């Protein structure tokens, strides 16, 4: 393709986190000026989210062991900013072939694309527990954003509960910042960590960092329990969280007083736009969830649509940077442009190592599917509309709705304002357990436009 043609080839990247920024950087270096659309006001995504103007904490305070990576990514973006078409504060809420529907500060416009690269990131993966609708329960990632972006703790006494590396990272960040951490409760037992060790050793440096977080928690005398079964978030509707009840690995029932709970089980990808584009999805056995089916470079099943970073495959921020570069090289290759084959091989190799590590994490900190089965009928599955596990189970038993989207139509689980982000995976587990089938057999919740709520006051402008 000649340069003139290349310049009229409209490449849109959605998301300015580590994957999106590295993708934009690689394309720009090859002579393609991408349009980078991001819902946030500033670059960095969630992981390297920048603090507001007027805040003064340095990189080391903000990002700890990841300070250099955050700084490097921000510096790269600052260099790119003037040379690419950057559109912050812009939500892509729908798409049709070749066209995105965008909302920006109350205005709506379409944006045409020839190639689309989805770097949409992830949100926390949640398993409900009795009482998780109470004010003061936050997602683990949310608890981290409170500290990183606003320098606040989500409560006076915070319990961290769930599983996965983020549990220890955020808890230790809270301790370091001077917050009171009442307990760290991990549903995964220590034995699984040992079993996963060979795979986790794919990235010894990161494993060491994780062990340091744990050491910091012990040093600060924070009670850490492994192999717990979460039972209930205690409290009442008016005042919110008052504590957490759980059983220890040895079966002892324990109550911890707290006014806030940070809850999460690793991450789930934001796949709605890929789904709306018609991209095939695949069920990942290791993490027991659906994500976009892509080749190793990030090509989806739809021509011209690509995906990279945690929005494609949950492998973390470091992998997202590699995947962002890798997917850009794939696009160049598909456009029959010259590209650096050495760099491609290097990125591919790095991603292979990170794949191995992510399999280790999935073994060490598994998604607690069995909790869905044990969830009392009275427990809320859908926080948005207060729909219980019992109501969802009735749609299976009385209406025979053993498929997620059908059960959603009857029960409204997944139809609320979060659009299933925080309930649909757990809901699928509840349905599967009740129907006595594997979770992948009950399907996955389809993406629907608008992927986030829009205001009726939005004004249409021509692109």
């Amino acid at each position, binding site marked *: 393709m000649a340069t003139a043609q290349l310049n009229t080839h409209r490449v849109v990247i959605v998301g300015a986190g580590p994957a999106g920024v590295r993708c934009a950087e690689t394309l720009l270096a090859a002579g393609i000026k991408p349009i980078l659309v991001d819902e946030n006001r500033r670059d960095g995504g969630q992981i390297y989210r920048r603090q507001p103007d007027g805040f003064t904490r340095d990189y080391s305070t903000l990002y700890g062991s990841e300070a250099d990576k955050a700084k490097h990514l921000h510096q790269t973006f600052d260099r790119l900013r003037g040379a690419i078409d950057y559109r912050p504060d812009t939500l892509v809420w729908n798409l049709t072939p070749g066209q995105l529907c965008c909302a920006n500060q109350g205005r709506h416009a379409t944006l045409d694309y020839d190639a689309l690269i989805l770097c949409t990131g992830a949100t926390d993966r949640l398993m409900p527990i009795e009482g998780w*609708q109470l004010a*003061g329960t936050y997602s683990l990632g949310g608890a981290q954003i409170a500290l990183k972006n606003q320098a606040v703790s989500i409560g006076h006494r915070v319990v961290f509960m769930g599983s996965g590396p983020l549990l220890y990272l955020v808890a230790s960040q809270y301790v370091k910042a001077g917050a009171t951490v009442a307990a760290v409760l991990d549903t995964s037992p220590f034995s699984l960590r040992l079993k996963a060790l060979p795979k986790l050793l794919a990235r010894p440096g990161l494993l060491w960092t994780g062990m340091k977080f744990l050491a910091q928690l012990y040093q600060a005398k924070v009670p850490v329990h492994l192999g717990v079964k979460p039972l209930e978030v205690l409290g009442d*509707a008016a005042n919110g969280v008052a504590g957490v009840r759980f059983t220890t690995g040895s079966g002892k029932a324990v109550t911890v007083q707290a006014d806030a709970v940070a809850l999460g089980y690793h991450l789930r990808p934001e796949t709605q736009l890929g789904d709306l584009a018609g991209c095939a999805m695949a069920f990942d056995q290791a993490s027991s969830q659906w994500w976009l089916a892509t080749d190793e470079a990030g090509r989806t099943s739809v021509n011209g649509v690509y995906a990279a970073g945690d929005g494609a495959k949950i492998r973390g921020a470091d992998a997202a940077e590699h995947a962002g570069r890798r997917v850009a090289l794939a696009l160049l290759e598909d456009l029959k442009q010259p590209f650096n084959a050495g760099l491609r091989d290097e990125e591919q190799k790095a991603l292979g190592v990170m794949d191995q590590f992510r399999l280790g994490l999935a073994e060490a900190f598994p998604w607690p599917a069995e909790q869905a089965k044990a969830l009392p009928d009275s427990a809320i599955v859908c926080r948005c*509309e*207060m729909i219980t596990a019992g109501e969802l189970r009735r749609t299976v038993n009385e209406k025979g709705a053993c498929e997620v989207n059908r059960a959603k139509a009857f029960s409204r689980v997944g139809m609320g304002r979060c659009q299933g982000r925080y309930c649909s995976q757990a809901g699928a587990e509840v349905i599967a357990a009740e129907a006595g089938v594997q979770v992948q057999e009950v399907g996955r919740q389809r993406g629907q436009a608008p992927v986030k709520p829009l205001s009726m006051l939005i004004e249409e402008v021509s692109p």
Partner: protein
Amino acid sequence: MKGRFVRLAEQGRPTVNLTVDGAPVEALQGDTLMVALLTQGGSLRQSEFDSGRRAGFCLMGACQDCWVWTRGGERLRACSNEVRDGLDIVTTQPEATWPLHS
């Protein structure tokens, strides 16, 4: 509850004055509405499906649990909108409620 969120650093910022449910509230420049409201109170809004109070959940614009409204009826996500002088916020939603579980 005096305040749900606890400030741990960055407290030397200039103040911003807004109104929440008719009462004056002092916040710091750069605060999200969520932080401004939850450093001084226990919740953001009333759930429209039960008797519970809500205080947000994800802080990244995905869960939509932190909606508040301007006096004019415009809906804002408290986690992703910053405070500004003179902002007049109401925490009861202007639309209908569906008290299924109250």
